[in-house]
């Protein structure tokens, strides 16, 4: 009983760590993007300020589902983050860091948010949710195919074990071992994080930030927290799956930072796709590339 409690506490610690890590790195990244745009940029802890400011405000609610959805969203994401291994050997629930848990448990959070947004009664929120789900339909399939290849090669769907597999001498990181798949994964990751050109579902100037249109104050703050943890989960997934996991926490943070910053830099030079362009894009090249990669790797055995 005690060790289960301890595990859960560790899990909460992981989630908290993820939140702090991602929020800081996001702040730093705002500076990075600002530099790209020849600006000075905000303080590195600006994201924290934003979130706590939101939590301090007096918000409005549109009924119980509006609040319930937010709680479910944040709860689901915290729950998901608790499973995330930080290094390839450190995680809260040893042996249960199954890839599918992340993919699907994260969906509870998404569903909660979508539900809450639609519950607000604002059509723009529903449109945003529609776009978010459509985008999800677009990027998820190519990504899953690449991960399928990895799972098939390593014979395990545990993130830490996939990480360890890459650390064995002779095996290279999957980003290098499966180069085509790696590129697909990067594109899919940009879709997951809602970075340009795939930020169609936020589109502030078009649909007034989509799902978040009716949020203010604490609900928005909680969604921000949720967003940060989601990003933490998704980027960590990438690190574990494609960049050889992490032997220690420093390496993890470094890899994490590199991935996230690189994505931000890429995204800062793009415009925005229309929603059907997103779908068409992902179902054209990334999917073909992912299938090609899977075929080469699984049936021909060509893994670098």
């Amino acid at each position, binding site marked *: 009983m005690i060790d289960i409690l301890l595990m859960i506490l560790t899990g909460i610690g992981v989630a908290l760590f993820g939140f702090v890590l991602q929020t800081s790195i996001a702040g730093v990244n*705002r500076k990075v993007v*600002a530099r790209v*745009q*020849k*600006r*000075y*940029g*905000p*303080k590195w802890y*600006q994201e924290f*300020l*934003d979130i*706590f*400011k939101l939590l*301090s*405000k*007096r*918000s*409005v609610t549109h009924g119980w589902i509006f609040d319930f959805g937010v709680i479910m969203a944040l709860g689901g994401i915290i729950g998901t983050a608790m499973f995330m291994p930080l290094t390839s050997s450190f995680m809260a629930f040893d042996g249960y860091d199954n890839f599918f848990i992340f993919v699907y448990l994260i969906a509870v959070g998404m569903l909660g948010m979508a539900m809450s947004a639609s519950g607000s009664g604002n059509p723009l929120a529903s449109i945003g949710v529609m776009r978010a789900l459509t985008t999800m339909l677009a990027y998820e399939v190519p990504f899953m195919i690449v991960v399928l290849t990895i799972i098939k090669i390593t014979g395990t769907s545990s993130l830490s074990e996939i990480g360890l597999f890459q650390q064995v001498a002779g095996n290279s990181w999957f980003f290098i071992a499966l180069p085509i798949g790696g590129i697909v994964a990067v594109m899919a990751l940009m879709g997951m994080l809602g970075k340009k050109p795939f930020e169609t579902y936020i589109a*502030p*100037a078009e649909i*007034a*930030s989509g799902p*978040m*249109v*009716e*949020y*203010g*104050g604490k609900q*928005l703050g909680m969604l921000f927290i949720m967003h940060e943890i989601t990003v933490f989960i998704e980027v960590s997934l990438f690190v574990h799956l494609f960049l050889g996991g992490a032997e220690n926490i420093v390496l993890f943070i470094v890899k994490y930072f590199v991935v996230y910053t690189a994505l931000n830099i890429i995204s800062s030079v793009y415009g925005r796709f229309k929603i059907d362009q997103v779908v068409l894009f992902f179902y054209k090249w990334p999917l073909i590339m992912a299938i090609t990669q899977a075929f080469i790797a699984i049936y021909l055995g060509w893994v670098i």
Partner: protein
Amino acid sequence: MLSTKFSPMSKEEVDRKWWEIGDFFRRNSLWMLMYCTGCCAIELPPAMTSAYDMERLGMGPMATPRQADVLLVTGYLSLKTLRRLIYTYEQMSEPKYIVGFGSCTINGGIYHDSHAVINQLNKYIPVDVFVAGCMPNTEAVMNGFVDLMDLIKNKKANGWKDYHERYEWYLANQKAALGEVRVHDEFHE
């Protein structure tokens, strides 16, 4: 002699402390809702982009009134837009602030004798900071934001409280300007 005894703070004191902490966050993270009805809006792009970079101050544009902290009224307001401005302002979550741009919001500016334009914005909604000029240059705009931050720090940005306290007064002014039908949709008139 200082007492080592722990004296619990009163509830008001606790609230005040929290409020001060909140104010710190709020003034360092001002999210704007830009109500770009007039020409002063043209000052915002340079303020946001690399020339002045208001993100340094933690400010940024937001899409909807629910998310925003500060409402920027950039210039003259016709009666039609006034209705919408009030509606928008009332949708914002508290605490909320208003910055009025240009002389039009102060005294009507060059439109002071127009039948369709209001002259004094703070008769209808509480304005915390005015940025004078026709139009104000970007430094003035930035200065206005910093002023607002100072006001928040000094707990003087109380327009939203004022709106609650003197709501009848504001309402009367609004009605006087807009007629008995304060808000109405053109589809349903």
